[in-house]
Structure formats: structure tokens, C-alpha cells
């Protein structure tokens, strides 16, 4: 039996034990039922901010209070390594910095930019550049994941009322922007895009060993069947390599595949004997993509990433779309009144006006369409690869690839148009003609009262701002800001261009112009080039007249006019001697007596050479003018009705003798109504416009040194 002291001690211990147990249980319950829900509600938990990384958290705990010091030292080291070009070490340091500061956005943004831009530019080989661009993008994507916002099934559902930690629109946007600038638009864009294509192809399917063989002469050769299958699967890559990068034999293409074998990829490193390489985890793939929140977005979990054609701008577009998720609900009356939004659930963009920011997905879609056309993809007719697949039995054999609809640029333009229209409707930049008319009518009262035009702000005293006048003032202000934001975002130009370009006539004209340009550059098929140009211009003019606002877009005018100048020069070069004779004849004809320049050797050889080419030559686009006054479309309808009425009557038999069937106009002729072809320099009547404005003509001529 224990003595009283021992008993008391035991009782005390027991009491302490019970107390500890009670307190511990109490704190546990308090944490579970009070603290955690509140933390959840206030978005204070680390998991609310995005993916949590165990090693980073452990490291931060280990450093206790010296995290700031460690980060500073590492940051300084990173700067020094950057200066000394120690790039592989820089990467390791940058990783450490971001592990220490995962919720501070600047290190992610700055260091990823450093890798993708500053480091990549120091490398000469596109492969090296591509590697560092990929590292920069992956780093920022990792940062985005750490700051992705609330996770969970309905994290991205903005309609539910649950609180959520918003992701960072700027980070997401910048990832897309990196793809766009460094792969889509860089100096070495053709190679960079090819490397991106390789990143998307299963390494087993692009293994050079798959294609190489030795021919009967003991030389290295390419297996035609395997290579044909590769071309079929990757027509854009092959065409880019052949047409733009000079890989003009299959062997050269395979060599490119061999040299670029180790590009960052979507797939694991291939192992011997595999017929299909497994995909990496979504976050470890390159190109890195956001989670597929919409059906139309590329799905990183699937081997077939997307049903669209793979393109760097598709990747950029997806990131731009993903960047829209954390934004507050869209304001249809921009500039009118700053609307409050729930800052716990949404985050606004910091780096640019939200109207511009919201336009990026549609802009990227336009780039996809432009890119397709720039690489020669217009419709579903595909590309016939010449030479490579010919043999002695069939010397003209060609392999047709890329007949899929996903290579149809017209469809890409249509999607761009739809996206622009939706963007315009969402942001209030696009007002339907009826809405525009209604608002203008309503605003007229105010404008007359304060004597301002539509482009001026105007103010009302508070005692005047009521009733009908207040409504008129609101309509005027809405129109004013609408115009202002449309100008800021260049909405009209993009919208009108996409509307015009999706026209099949414009697509076909582009195709002919592209072919003409290729023929012109090849220097061997000049006649075909001239024919293609000749065929293209009427179609182009038709496309412009069909959508008159399309033809008003200045870069559309400039691009077309530049091609026209090249066409004219080609024609002159091709018919140099004939033109020289004509010009000399005309000069001879201008003087009396008509002395022959050649017989009397009046011109030195240098002077003879200088006759051609004529610099101030004008072409078909210089001559076209069209009516762009008020109600132009209605006038066309009336004119068309006037023309068609007798024809319809003739079909009834009344004037059948006057209008034989051969004279029935094609419906497309309607677009040529209220247009005319006159000599360049003919004064433009009021409400009429030239197809290409004089300013744009001068711009192009100056650019080409013809001014």
C-alpha cells in the first residue's frame, strides 16, 4: 500500500492525465468543428490556394524563421548565375526559391520570364532555346498550380455561392503569352513550332530508327511506307519542314527527328520494346496545359490531345480561356459605373484592362486561322507532297495528306468570328445594328440639348438629369464608352476581318494567292504564279465587296496590296523584253520625227536596263471604288430587285424574248453592284471609297522602297 504522499502523487497524475485528455479532445473537436469550417469559409487554408507540395512545406518548416534570409541569398545567387550563364544551376536555384515562396507570385513570374526569355535568347540553337522556353513555361505552370485556387469538383463553377479562392488570371495569361511570343511568333518560329509538334508526338512514332534503312547501294535511305504514314499523321510538321525550313528530302526530315529526339514531351522516356509510350502525368507534360474544364479544350489525359489541329496558338488560346475563370462577372456597360464584385471569389486582372484581357482567347483563335493559311492550309483538299514518293513505275506519284476538316482555315476563321462576336456581346463592345440604332435615336435628345457629337462626353446638371433626358444621357454615355473601348481593343478591325476571312471566296482567294507566292519564290513556275494571281484578284475583290467592312481593315488592305505589287513586278520581269519594246515605242511615238532609239543607239545599255521595272505601276486593286454611304446594302437590294424583276417576269414568259437564259446574272453579281473600276487617280465621289486607301498604298510602297 502506497503511503499518503504516493497516493496524492498518483491522484495528481491521474487528474493531470484526465485534464490533458480532455483538453486534447476539446482542442481536436474545436479544430474540427469551429476552426476548420471558418478557415475554409475565409479561404485561409493552404489547400484553398492550390496544390500543396509536401517537400516545399517541409523545407519551409525546417527553415523556421530564416526563410526570408534563405530566399534573399538564393535570389542573389540566381542573379549571379544568370550573369555568369550558369543556366543549369540557375534552374536548381530558381526551383528552390519558388519552393520557399510558393504564394508570392513575383518569383514565379520573374524567374519563369528569366528562363523563357533571357536565358533562351542567349542560346543559338533553336533546340536549346526551346528547352529553356519549356522550362520557363513549366515553372510558371507549376506556380499557377500552387496558386490555382480552391480545388474540388465545383471549384470552377462560378455560379454556386460557395466561397472559393480565386486563381491568378495574370499567371495563366502569361503562360499563354509565353507560348505565343516564344514559340508562335519568335524569329525561329518555324523551327520552334516543329519542336512543339515533336513534343506532341509519341517518341516511339518519331524514332528515327523506325524510318531509316540501307538501300541496295549501301547508302542510308528512308523507308517510304513508314515515312508516308508519318507524313499522313503529321502533315503540318512535314510541310513546315519541307516548305519553310528547307528539309527537302525525307532523309533530311528524319535527320531533324534524330537531332531533336530529346525534346521535352508529353510522353515518358521510351523504353526498348515499347510500341506505345505512356503519357506523363498531366503536370509533367510539355506543352503543359490547364485542366480540361470545357469539352472543346485539349484534354491532357488523352493521347489524342484535341480534335482541332495542334497548334501553339491552340495551347495559348486554352490558357487564355483558362485565365478568364477567376475574373469577376463581365460588365456589359464598361465605363459607366465601377461595379463591385466579391473579392473572395473573384480576382481581376492586374496587368491590363479587362476588356483587352477578355479578348485574348478570340485573338488566339484568329492566330490559329492565320497560321493555317500562312502554312498553306485552306480547305479540305489537303496537300499533295511532290517528289518524295515517286518511283520509277510512277514518276508523278504524290502523297495527299491533311485532307481533314481540321485543317480548313475557313472553319478556323468562322470559329474566330463566333468567338469575337460572343466576346463583343459579353463585354458590350458589340452592339447589334438595331440596338445601335435605338441607342443613337435615344441619345439624340441629349446631344441636341448640350450640343455635343457622338464622340464627345458631355455633362448634365443634376437638375437636368431626370426623365427622358436622363435616359438620353445614359444612351449617349453608353455609346461614347462603347466607341472608346472598341477603339482601345481594336475590336472592329478584328471582328470585321474574321467576318470577311471566313467567307469561302476569301479563303479560295487566299489559297490562290498563297500558291502564286510559292510559285513566285520557286522561280521556276512563274507563269503559273501569274495565272494564280490573275485568278485570285477578282475573287479577292468579290470577298471585299461582299463584306465591305472587311475591306476597310487596314492590314487586310496592306497585305493584299503588297501581294499585288509583287504580282506586278513579276509580270514585268516575265515580260521584260516586250514591255521594253512597248515603252521605247511609246517614247519614240511621242517625238517627231519618230527616231528609233535602237537604230541610232540613243540609249546606253545602263539606260536600257533602267527602263524596267517601272516602279509606279498600278494594278487591279488600285482601280476599284465602291459605295459605302448610308443604307448601301438597301440600295444594293433595290438595284438588285430592279435588275431581277424583268428576269423573273421573263421566267413567267412576259419578256422571254428580251432576256435569254444566258443573261441571267449570278447571285454573287449582287455584291458588285454599286462598285466601279476606274483609272487610279479618278476623284472618289462622296460616300464612295477606294478598295485600298491611298494611305495604305503609300505605306506599302514605302515599305517596299517604291516611294
Amino acid at each position, binding site marked *: 500500500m502506497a503511503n499518503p504522499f504516493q497516493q496524492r502523487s498518483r491522484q495528481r497524475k491521474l487528474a493531470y492525465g484526465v485534464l490533458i485528455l480532455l483538453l486534447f479532445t476539446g482542442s481536436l473537436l474545436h479544430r474540427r468543428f469551429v476552426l476548420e469550417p471558418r478557415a475554409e469559409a475565409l479561404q485561409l487554408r493552404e489547400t484553398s490556394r492550390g496544390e500543396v507540395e509536401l517537400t516545399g512545406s517541409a523545407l519551409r518548416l525546417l527553415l523556421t524563421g530564416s526563410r526570408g534570409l534563405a530566399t534573399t541569398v538564393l535570389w542573389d545567387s540566381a542573379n549571379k548565375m544568370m550573369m*555568369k550563364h550558369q543556366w543549369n544551376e540557375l534552374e*536548381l536555384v530558381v526551383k528552390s526559391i519558388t519552393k520557399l515562396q510558393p504564394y508570392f507570385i513575383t518569383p514565379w513570374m520573374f524567374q519563369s520570364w528569366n528562363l523563357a526569355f533571357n536565358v533562351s535568347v542567349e542560346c*543559338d540553337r533553336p533546340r536549346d532555346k526551346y528547352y529553356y522556353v519549356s522550362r520557363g513555361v513549366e515553372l510558371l505552370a507549376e506556380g499557377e498550380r500552387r496558386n490555382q485556387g480552391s480545388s474540388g469538383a465545383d471549384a470552377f463553377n462560378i455560379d454556386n455561392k460557395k466561397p472559393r479562392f480565386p486563381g491568378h488570371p495574370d499567371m495563366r495569361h502569361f503562360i499563354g503569352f509565353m507560348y505565343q511570343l516564344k514559340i508562335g511568333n519568335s524569329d525561329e518560329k518555324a523551327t520552334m513550332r516543329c519542336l512543339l509538334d515533336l513534343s506532341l508526338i509519341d517518341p516511339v512514332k518519331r524514332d528515327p530508327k523506325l524510318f531509316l534503312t540501307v538501300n541496295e547501294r549501301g547508302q542510308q535511305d528512308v523507308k517510304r511506307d513508314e515515312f508516308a504514314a508519318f507524313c499522313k499523321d503529321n502533315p503540318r510538321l512535314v510541310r513546315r519542314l519541307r516548305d519553310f525550313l528547307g528539309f527537302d528530302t525525307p532523309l533530311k526530315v528524319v535527320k531533324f527527328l534524330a537531332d531533336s529526339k*530529346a525534346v521535352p514531351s508529353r510522353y515518358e522516356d521510351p523504353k526498348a520494346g515499347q510500341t506505345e509510350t505512356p503519357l506523363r502525368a498531366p503536370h509533367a507534360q510539355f506543352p503543359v496545359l490547364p485542366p480540361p474544364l470545357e469539352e472543346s479544350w485539349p484534354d491532357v489525359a488523352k493521347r489524342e490531345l484535341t480534335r482541332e489541329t495542334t497548334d501553339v496558338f491552340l495551347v495559348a488560346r486554352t490558357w487564355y480561356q483558362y485565365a478568364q475563370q477567376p475574373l469577376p462577372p463581365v460588365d456589359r456597360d464598361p465605363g459607366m459605373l465601377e461595379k463591385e464584385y466579391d473579392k473572395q471569389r473573384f480576382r481581376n486582372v492586374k496587368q491590363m484592362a479587362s476588356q483587352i484581357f477578355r479578348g485574348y482567347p478570340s485573338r488566339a483563335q484568329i492566330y490559329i486561322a492565320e497560321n493555317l493559311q500562312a502554312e498553306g492550309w485552306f480547305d479540305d483538299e489537303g496537300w499533295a507532297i511532290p517528289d518524295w514518293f515517286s518511283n520509277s513505275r510512277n514518276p508523278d506519284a504524290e502523297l495527299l495528306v491533311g485532307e481533314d476538316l481540321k485543317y480548313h482555315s475557313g472553319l478556323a476563321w468562322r470559329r474566330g468570328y463566333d468567338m469575337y462576336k460572343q466576346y463583343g456581346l459579353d463585354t458590350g463592345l458589340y452592339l447589334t445594328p438595331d440596338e445601335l440604332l435605338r441607342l443613337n435615336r435615344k441619345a439624340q435628345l441629349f446631344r441636341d440639348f448640350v450640343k455635343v457629337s457622338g464622340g464627345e462626353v458631355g455633362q448634365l446638371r443634376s437638375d437636368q438629369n431626370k426623365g427622358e433626358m436622363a435616359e438620353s444621357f445614359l444612351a449617349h454615355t453608353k455609346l461614347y464608352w462603347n466607341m472608346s473601348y472598341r477603339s482601345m481593343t481594336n475590336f472592329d478591325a478584328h471582328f470585321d476581318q474574321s467576318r470577311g476571312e471566313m467567307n469561302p471566296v476569301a479563303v479560295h482567294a487566299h489559297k490562290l494567292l498563297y500558291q502564286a507566292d510559292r510559285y513566285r519564290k520557286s522561280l521556276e513556275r512563274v507563269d503559273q504564279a501569274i495565272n494564280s494571281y490573275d485568278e485570285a484578284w477578282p475573287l479577292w475583290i468579290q470577298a471585299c465587296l461582299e463584306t465591305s467592312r472587311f475591306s476597310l481593315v487596314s492590314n487586310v488592305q496592306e497585305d493584299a496590296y503588297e501581294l499585288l505589287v509583287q504580282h506586278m513586278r513579276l509580270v514585268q520581269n516575265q515580260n521584260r523584253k516586250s514591255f521594253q519594246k512597248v515603252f521605247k515605242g511609246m517614247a519614240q511615238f511621242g517625238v517627231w520625227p519618230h527616231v528609233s532609239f535602237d537604230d541610232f543607239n540613243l540609249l546606253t545599255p545602263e539606260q536600257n536596263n533602267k527602263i524596267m521595272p517601272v516602279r509606279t505601276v498600278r494594278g487591279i486593286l488600285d482601280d476599284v471604288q465602291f459605295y459605302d454611304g448610308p443604307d448601301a446594302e438597301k440600295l444594293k437590294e433595290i438595284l438588285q430587285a430592279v435588275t431581277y424583276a424583268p428576269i423573273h417576269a421573263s421566267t413567267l414568259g412576259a419578256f422571254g424574248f428580251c432576256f435569254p437564259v444566258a443573261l441571267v446574272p449570278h447571285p454573287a453579281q449582287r455584291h458588285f453592284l454599286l462598285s466601279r473600276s476606274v483609272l487610279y487617280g479618278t476623284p472618289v465621289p462622296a460616300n464612295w471609297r477606294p478598295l485600298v486607301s491611298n494611305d495604305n498604298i503609300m505605306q506599302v510602297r514605302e515599305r517596299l522602297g517604291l516611294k
Partner: protein
Amino acid sequence: MIFATLVLEREPLQTAEFLAALIVWVQNVGGVASLALAIWAIAILLQRMKVSVPLFSDRTEKVLPTSDLFVYGSLFCFVGYLAILFLSIAAGSSAGLTRFVPRLSFDQPLSIGDYVMTVCGAVALLIALYPIVTGLFGKLRWGRIEAMARLSFKEAVRSRVVLIFSAMALVFLFVDWFVQHKPEDQIRNYVRVVYWTMTPLFIITALMLGSFIIPNDVKNMSIHTIVTKPVEKFEIVLGRFLGYGLLLTLGVAGVALVSLGFILRTNVTDEAAKESYKARVALFGDLAFAGTKSTQKGESVGREWEYRSYISGPTVNVPERQFAIWSFGDLPSSLGRGVETLRFEYTFDIFRLSKGEEGKDIACTFTLAEGHLDGREVAKVKEAFKQESDAQEAEIRAAHSKNLGAAASADETAKAVEALQAKLKEARAALVQKHRFVELAGQPVTDNHTQSLEVPAVFFTALMEKTEARTAPNGKYYPQLRVYVSVDRTNSGESQMLGVARRDLYLIAAELPFWQNFLKGIVGMWCSVMLVLGIAVSCSTYLSGLISLFLTAMIYGLGQTTEYLQQVADKKVEGGGPLEGFTRLAGRKMLAVQLEDSPATSLIKGGDEFFSWIVRRLLNLVPDVARFDLHQYVANGFDISWGQVLFMDNLIPLVGYLLPWAILSYYLMKYREIANPS
């Protein structure tokens, strides 16, 4: 770097510089000793004490007639240093006094100040060492030291310190998750990660072990069980150091072997194998320039890091070439024997002045000639070589044209062409041997990549055969070989700049296995661990464990920042010293803005001058720990030489730095009151 090049901003200590380094060491260590002795001597004089010194093989200390010499000698040393200090400060305003100031670099001749400081330092060291040498002579027993070492080892093992080493396993397990790499950087990154992890792991272990054990012995009074035995106190220090040193050595060796296994088991990519999975025994030359503004430096392209100088190619406006010239002093006599060609490797930086052509390298010409020839003579040799080469080629082709014409079948033609090629090659080799001249034009240079060129071995054998003395009339010693590199003219007339540094071009004398080099690199790491252990044990002889730990960590930390400290000492930091920096901050003055001339500015600048002087002195006491980091060699595939790098640049500085700490720990332990008889 992303290419296999060795970037050393500080050259390893050369054998020829050993004496100069020793002088500096004597000056620095002697300076510290003289300061301590001066304090001691002043105390002796003030207290009118008699100095007793120990005698050899005698436990008692006796007052000798010469003892006063120690006191006055100490004061003499201190006065010597003090005089040099005042002269150094005065030399700032009077140029005539510069010869009394110690030289700033090894290139300069020894000054009067150097002699004075060396003598004073040597005397101070002798005075400081005398009691140790005489006091310990014949008294130190290896058996006791060994027992102490064994005890330390056992204590450390029992305290499960070795478990810390297993933390490396985490790296091996998870490194692949975090370390992504370009194919060519694979080995480089693994080596980097292993070194980055191992170094702090062992440094921290050494720091903890060295700092706490003696203070803990004192605290637990276990030291009394030792010092009451007939044992020298210094034996405790030595025993502890050796015991822990042995433990750490075994730890470093064990972890290094496992790390090596980890690297070797990886599937090394072809690119990485080519760049760094080897140990090149490379011969480096000295770099000079021709055609640029200075023979010591090329052009600057405005890069912040001025490690590389640039040469440009000829242009329409400036048709003259600029040259980067590597001079190779003494080549090994065996070079070129038994092989057909020898390989030079080069890794240059390209600074583009225009975009150039995508995916196209720039072309350079490499000219190899005898070292005693100057530029004009090389041009003459080149001309003669070309003429003879053209004539010979024409002759050979003419002679073989008949055979070629007579060939009836493809096989015969191929044979004839082969014979022609062989003959041409033979003739060319003979010419190379005759003129001792090789020119390789149009060699491609890719930015940031290692490339190589093969040079016929006959060229080197011809160089070796030349027995004439390589001494010029003025006594200058000619190099054996010079390699001239210049950028070729492009068809478009564009010019690009080629960035070169001394170690960017090298001759491969041999290639050794990677594993061997990896382990050599670990020796450097071991040196830094021993350095930390030595400092920590020395500090702990007097200070408490925690203070020892912080002090050692601070000294090591300062050692890591010597580059920056050097900039502060040389007043090269942007924005001036601390006072100027503070003034700028307070006055919101940008770095580009000059401070106004005023008495206050003079005062501020004077204060900063004094601060930089303090830092200069501090630099002499701080260990240059960067020299022990040999990962650059391993990661980039360059052999670490036993003599030059490991012995001269690692082991000797380690001993040199730890010796003064050992002296200090002797005195601190000796005069520490632990069970002292009195």
C-alpha cells in the same frame, strides 16, 4: 554553364607561387601573432614579471637570461606592423611611400614593406611557436592521442551521429522528381545536387561535433578524469580533432561511394557522356590577343560578367582580323606518340551583332605554329606552306590523273581516288612536319557547345624534335606552341563576336575515368569539412559550445562571401562603402549621381576607406572556402590534378589555415583553468 568548360575565376595556386604565398602566410599569421604577443608583452612589462619559458624535455619552466628578448622581440614585431600600417594609410596621399607598402599581387616585386612585415611576422611566429615546440617536445604521446581519438570516435558513434549521413538517402530517392535536365546537363546536374547536399550535411555535422564536445566535457566535468592524468591538454584537442576527423572522413568516403554508385547507375545520355562523363587531362595555354586594343584583353561587348573577352571577324569596313592567341609553355614530350591525331576542344561564346542564319554556326580559323614566331613570321610560314602545298598537290594530282583516267571500273576508280587521297595526306603530313605549321580554316563554332578539332600528331612530334633553346635574347622564355583563333569572314559580310577565356580552348592529353575524378573532388569537400572541424574544436577550447558553433559558422559563412568581401575591400561595390550607401539612401540619391564635393563627403569617403582597409585585413583571416569546391571540375569532366589542385591548392592551404588555429588552441587550452595545479 551549359557546355563543358572550366570556369575558374581564381587560378589554383601554382608551384612557382608557393614561396610568395608562404610570405603572405607568414605576414598574416605573424600579424595576428604579433598583436597577441604585444598585448602579452605590455602586460608583462606593466606587471614587471619575469618571463619563464619551458625547456626541452623538462617539465619545469625556467627564467632564462634571454627571456627578455621574447618580450622586446614581441614589441618589435608589433611596432613593425604598426609602422607599415601607418605608412599604408599615408601612401594614399603620397606616392613616394608606395615602396614601403606591401605589394598587392604576386606579379609585383617585393617591396620594403613586404620585407619588414615578413621579418616581423616570422619573428612573432617563432616567439609564439617556441613555447609550443619546447613545451611539447618529447611530451606528446601518440598512444594517448590515439586513445582520445578512439574515445571521440566511439562517443560520436554511440550518439548516433552517423544516422545524419543517412539523410543523403532522401536525395538519392527523390532527386529524379525535382531535377530535370537537358540531356547534356544530366551528369552535371547530378554532380551538382550531390555536392550541394553532401557539403552542408558534413559541414553542419563537423560544426556540431567540433563545437560542443570539449565544452560538454567541461560542463559534465568528465574532462577532469582526463586532465588529472599525466596528459598534455593539447593532446585532448588533438585527440578530439583526429577522432572526429576520422569519423567524418569515413562518413564522407562512405556517402561519396554511395553517391558515386547513384550517379553511375543512371542511364547516361550520349550528350552527357560526351560532355562530362569523363575526366579530361587538359593542357591549358595562356591567352593573349592581337588586333584588339590591348594584348591582354579582347573587346568588351557590354556583358556584366567580364570573364570572357571578344574578338570580331573581318568586315568590309574593317578587313583586319582580330586574334585570340593561346600560348602553351611546355608540352609533355610524349605528346603525339603512338597516335595519328591529337584533339583540341573548344567552347566559345558567340555574341551576335546580327541575327545571322538560323541554325548556322560561325566559322573560325585555327592556326597552330611554333611559339617563338611572331605574327609576321607566322604569316610568312603560312605563305610558304601554302605555296608548297599547292605545288605538291598539283604535282600529285597530275601524277595520279593517268591512273584515274585508266581506271576501267568503279572499283578501280575508287582505289585510284583512295591512293590519291593517301598520297595527298602523306605529302601534307610531311609539309606539316617541315614547317611545324597547321591551319584549319572554316571550323564551325556553335554557341555554348563543346566542339573539337583534330590536329595531326606529326605536328607535335615535330615540335618535340626541335631541340633549340626557347630563350629569347632578352631572357624571355618562348612558349612551345601558339594557337591563333580568328573569326572568318561571312559571305554576307556580317561580323559576329567570339567570346573567349583562357580555359575555353585546351589540348586533350588523356582521358581518365569519371569515377576517379568524382572521388578526387570529394577530397576537396573533405578539406572544407576538416577546416570547419579544426576551427570549431579550436574555438571550443575556450568558448562555450553555442558560441563556438556560431563563431565557426560565421567564419565559414564569411569564407563563402570572399568574392563580395574582395569587392568591398577593392571599393568596387556599386554605390560605395556603407557610409556612402547610407548617405545615398537617406538623401535618395541614385547610384549615377556624384556626391557633392564637401567636407562631409570627404569624411564619408575617408570612413569608407577605413572600412575597406578593415575588410582587407579581415580577408586575410577569412578562409577561402571556395577553393575546396571542386565540383566544377567533376561536373564538366576535367581531371583534378593531384599535385596542382589537390596538394597545392587544397591540402597546403588547409594546413596553412589550421596551423595558426592549432597554436591558438594550444594557448587557450593551456591557460584554461581546468584542474590546474595552481
